[in-house]
């Protein structure tokens, strides 16, 4: 029954100042598609809400001079989808971001919120990890960068320091012959949460895989970077044996739980299946002959 204060600052410094001063009693509002639901369910009761959507840096998309992308943490899935270039360069990241919630939710939900919500099943996170995206965070002690894979600490927890706000994602420039993809298993076709999610980003040169990263969601307390799966693909021509080795690495990396959304056995098996299918799509996008 206590009042909630609401702030919508226009600068990051203001936002960080207010957020840090509240000492944990504050929550960041981007699209609100997780926060408002949690508040209505009584799961969180913030004393202060800091709305970051009026801060230009957090709602803009920038294609950098080197061909990379900087995406504000509060950019909505719908806005990212309307960007003329982003989906051509990072189709896998875009399809993952666009799977967050329904069409209506897409108008609000952001990749920054999806990452900070720290659900092991967040759809955009495996694709961002596969893309080797880096986030910029700003706190009372200034700015720093960290890889996306380092942000989640466990279900609902992040490694952001007190007072720190996620500002943006930076995606690296794309070499020729690069392709990415994201697939998830849900029992329904829509309006559901990933039982397993798999992001793959790879580069092909003359049919040989020269780089590969695999992100795996909903199979451990945090979204995983499965290094062994990437290694199994690199140097191969994506033949069946290499892909099966990568799938086995994904299965081996799984540390899932049995819950209402899926069993340990099921999630583990599906991780391998999705790896194979996702590699196939990413390879086609990379221009596999």
């Amino acid at each position, binding site marked *: 029954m206590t009042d909630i204060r609401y702030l919508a600052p226009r600068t990051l410094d203001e936002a960080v100042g207010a957020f840090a001063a509240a000492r944990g009693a504050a929550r960041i509002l981007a699209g609100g598609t997780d926060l408002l639901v949690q508040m209505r369910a009584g799961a969180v009761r913030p004393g202060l809400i800091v709305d970051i959507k009026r801060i230009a840096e957090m709602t803009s998309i920038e294609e950098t001079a080197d061909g990379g992308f900087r995406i504000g943490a509060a950019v909505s899935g719908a806005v990212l989808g309307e960007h003329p270039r982003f989906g051509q360069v990072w189709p896998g990241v875009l399809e993952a971001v666009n799977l967050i919630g329904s069409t209506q939710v897409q108008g609000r939900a952001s990749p920054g919120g999806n990452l900070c919500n720290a659900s092991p099943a967040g759809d955009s996170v495996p694709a961002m990890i596969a893309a080797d995206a880096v986030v910029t965070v700003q706190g009372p002690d200034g700015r720093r960068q960290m890889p996306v894979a380092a942000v989640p600490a466990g279900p609902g927890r992040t490694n952001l320091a007190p007072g720190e706000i996620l500002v943006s994602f930076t995606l690296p420039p794309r070499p020729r012959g690069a392709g990415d993809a994201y697939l998830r*298993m849900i*029992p*329904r*076709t*829509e309006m559901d*949460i990933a039982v397993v999610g798999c992001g793959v980003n790879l580069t092909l040169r003359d049919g040989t895989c020269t780089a590969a990263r695999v992100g795996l969601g909903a199979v451990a307390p945090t979204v995983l970077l499965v290094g062994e799966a990437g290694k199994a693909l690199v140097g191969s021509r994506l033949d069946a044996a290499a892909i099966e080795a990568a799938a086995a690495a994904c299965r081996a990396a799984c540390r899932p739980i049995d819950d209402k959304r*899926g*069993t340990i056995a099921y999630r583990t098996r599906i991780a391998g299946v999705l790896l194979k299918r996702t590699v196939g799509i990413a390879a086609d996008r990379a221009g596999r002959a």
Partner: protein
Amino acid sequence: MNVQANKWIGQRTIRPDGADKVTGRAAYAADTTMPGMIWGKILRSPHPHACIRSIDTSKAEALPGVKAVMTARDLVDFPIDKSVMLGIQDMRWMCRNVMAREKALFAGHPVAAVAATSEAIASEALKLIEVEYEVLPWVIDVEEAMKPDAPILHDHIQFEGKPSNIAGKLEHKLGDVEAGFAAAEVVVERSFRTKPVHQGYIEPHACLVSVLPDGKTTIWSSSQGQFMVRAMCAHLTGLPQNDIRAIQAEIGGGFGGKTIIYLEPVALVLARKSGRPVKMAMTREEVFRASGPTSGSYSTVRIGATRDGRILAAKGTFYLQAGALPGSPIRGAAGCAFAPYDIPNVHSLGFDVVSNRSKVAAYRAPGAPIGAYAVECVLDELAEALKMDPLQLRLKNAARQGTKAAHGPTYPRIGFEETIQAALEHPHYRAPLGPNQGRGVASGFWFNAGGESSAQVNITEDGNVVVTTGHPDIGGSRASTANITAELLGIDYRKVSVLIGDTSTIGFSNLTGGSRVTYASAMVVTQSTEKVIRTLCERAAKIWKIDPDAVVWEDGEARPAGDNAGQFPPLTLAQIAARASETGGPIGAGVQLNTTGAEGGFATHICDVEVDPELGTVRVLRYTSFQDVGRAIHPSYVEGQMQGGVAQGIGWALSEEYIYDKQGRVDNPSFLDYRMPVCSDLPMLDTVIIEVPNPKHPQGVRGVGEVPLVPPLAAVANAIHDALGHRFYSLPMSPPKVLAVLEPADA
């Protein structure tokens, strides 16, 4: 009246409630407000089974803003050993379901309620109520609940002389089933399990109740029967029925789940205590934890036939999970299971088993999908064993006019064979299938119902028509009523307005359920309109100064007939209405009936699925339902009913289930984790309407709404078998279950 030349019957007229709904103006129960209104909330048991030692509400009462607190003591007590029936509900169970008395019987069982000036204060007050529980061992699963060492929910319930969770038994017998099996050349027996599933209506239960100091009470609520609301509230609060006016709000889905009350008597008591109007609305979580799902089940079905496919004997045993208080739909399971077939020897048994989960409420053909699932899957195996086409097996044994059914009736003209014939001849049945795809068929039956209905047809002074009935419209009954009235009067459909009266403005009408409303209201509306037409002819006769028998009503006007034919210009409805006062007064008529003759409904379904063998997912590719509806008064609504039932059946078969945690609480009380199909999960659900008129109804109507949920469980299961060569004997056939079969864990 039942001819294809009808002008309005059989037309896809614009639904009277359409504009309200698409513009967001339809007033549901939660949209209602009143000056001075306060909010009620319910404290629910966290334990699935516990004795309530004491409840201390003093701290909650002292909280500023709290206007009333109540417990079961504020409701009329119905002793546990004395049955008081109201329709199919027993008030001793209803009173305990609304508010726990001796024991909390499921996690989510109401134990107290408060009303306060805001929702936040009401929630805060609930935390201040101190309940002392003596926690007891609990049991949820239906088979567990029947084990000898299972915790007993109700000490007074006995079965075969011992305390038991088996609260009731129903048995249908026809012929000599053992002799039938002895003569059979092929016998198939299988056991099946289904999970409890929820009706899944979009609108949570809600109400607003106002009680004046003299006791005059008004209830706005969303239910399938305002008269049911009035009667149950009267029973539970001791108020006479004339003091309660129950007003039907627009309803956002019921499917049977709103044929009982949850909030209304609680809000009534809180309003009476506080002197303020009280509004209550369940959250989705409360809907899942504490409102009526249907039963989970364990069934065994045995069917024996000759080598050439004549079924000689059938036996079914159906154990249904009632939830915390007795009342499983065993009649639907045991009664409908074998009803589509002409079988000389039948023994069908239903058992009502209580356990520590929310009390079941009706769900679209209550119990029948459970029985049909087992029977129609066994028939599929029987057809396979006999090397017979599964539809031909059904056709060979189909019930027809004169068939004696195990549940009692000897059928009049029915249309079951026609549904099978239509399926056999439909292109769907011969369409090619690809890899990992399969096709299944199943049939189903539902009793349908008649019962009490009232209608009033009034001619307005300007010559239009207002029809009032007493039934909440959950399936298009307003549009159907308007079609029938326009047809009989020979006037444009748009001249007819149809309203749903409240308990003080229209006569008693039984609730909307049992696929009865279009059937029964058509009868009372037809008789009322015929009376109106007689009056209109009399008034014309008076104007013309001729004998009333010499006037006929044709094409919306009175015409002189016989010797007087052509002697006077016809009089339209508007012309007669304009002269109503001088010719005898207002024109209108009402009829009240306890309708009978609602004959059973039959359907046959074809389902195609595709299985992803790596993920274990099953997608329905194509689905066609064939149903004898008697006469489709409004075909769009009939098709909508057929599609809606199929969609719910597909969910029941593939993805819906209650999941409980280790504390005996529902672990998936949301639409996210309680997986009903969404639009993208389903193909267009095709429908084929078959019209074999019910000879006992003026328009030939048979009930439509419930049959469509009876065949899908088995149709989907049989299709999966056709795709995989493997049979599943439990629902839902969810991806982990399917994959475990395709790729055993030790492979």
